């Protein structure tokens, strides 16, 4: 799980062009939106694309998206759970 979390950090920094952020700066349980990394609505769409492009996972509805993208840890949990299936 730790490898997946670290991989996600690198992918998110690249996809969202967070040039001032290093992987070790990101707390995996901190909120991605609002406080935390301070991402915006376009970033949210970019994360949905990332999940599909890198892991072949589609987010089916807005309610589940809110839970999946609440933190890096929650994204990793979702990927680990659904990649097995």
């Amino acid at each position, binding site marked *: 799980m730790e490898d997946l979390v670290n991989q996600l950090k690198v992918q998110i920094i690249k996809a*969202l062009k967070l040039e001032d952020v290093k992987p070790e700066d990101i707390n995996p349980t901190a909120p991605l939106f609002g406080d935390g990394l301070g991402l915006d609505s*376009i970033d949210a769409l970019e994360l949905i694309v990332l999940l599909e492009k890198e892991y072949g996972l589609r987010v089916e509805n807005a309610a589940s998206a809110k839970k999946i993208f609440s933190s890096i840890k929650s994204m990793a949990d979702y990927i680990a759970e659904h990649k097995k299936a």
Partner: protein
Amino acid sequence: MSSIGFIKSYSIIRNNQAILNGEEFLKGAPEDDFATFIRSLYKKLEITHSPFYKMDDMCKLGLMATELILKDSAIKEKYTDTEIGVVLSNSSSSLHTDASYYETVKDKSNYFPSPAVFVYTLPNIVIGEICIRNKIKGENTFFIFEEYNPEFITDYVNNLFSSGKLKSCIAGWVEFCEGKYEAFLYLAEAAQAENLITHTAEQIKKIYNF
């Protein structure tokens, strides 16, 4: 008949060089690409504006040219948000970013449209980025010409001044296409102050060809 405004400051960014009011502000190495040079300019201006890194190249160019002309202007202390406008122009519209977006959608077997690229597929987004950064809410327009047209832009801005819609305006040219770039922006004001250049096409041509 429109009244004539005055040019408070101007910037030129081209060929890895940034010029402010006729003096070199930054010169990049000849081998620097645009990304390297514009990042150096961002650092030299000592700005903290993290959305900069997410912008497309034309927005980075326009925003840095604006930062140069506003940095010592105290414009926000003189005018309200709605008294300041932005009138820009170029020849390639957003074609450079349109092509980048097309790369993300052209292959149906690898179809991952990028929302972050898509939002920059309009030329007037550069105006939006300037306005968001500087909290500007006045009149704004983006024109497309084959080449820079100082007669049209000066007339248009001077009319905004004489109609009372604006008291100050960021105007000029922001062009980026296929790695070639040029920004020429100036800050015009309706009110006269000492030693300012008059806002006429003739004066614009003189400083643009610096």
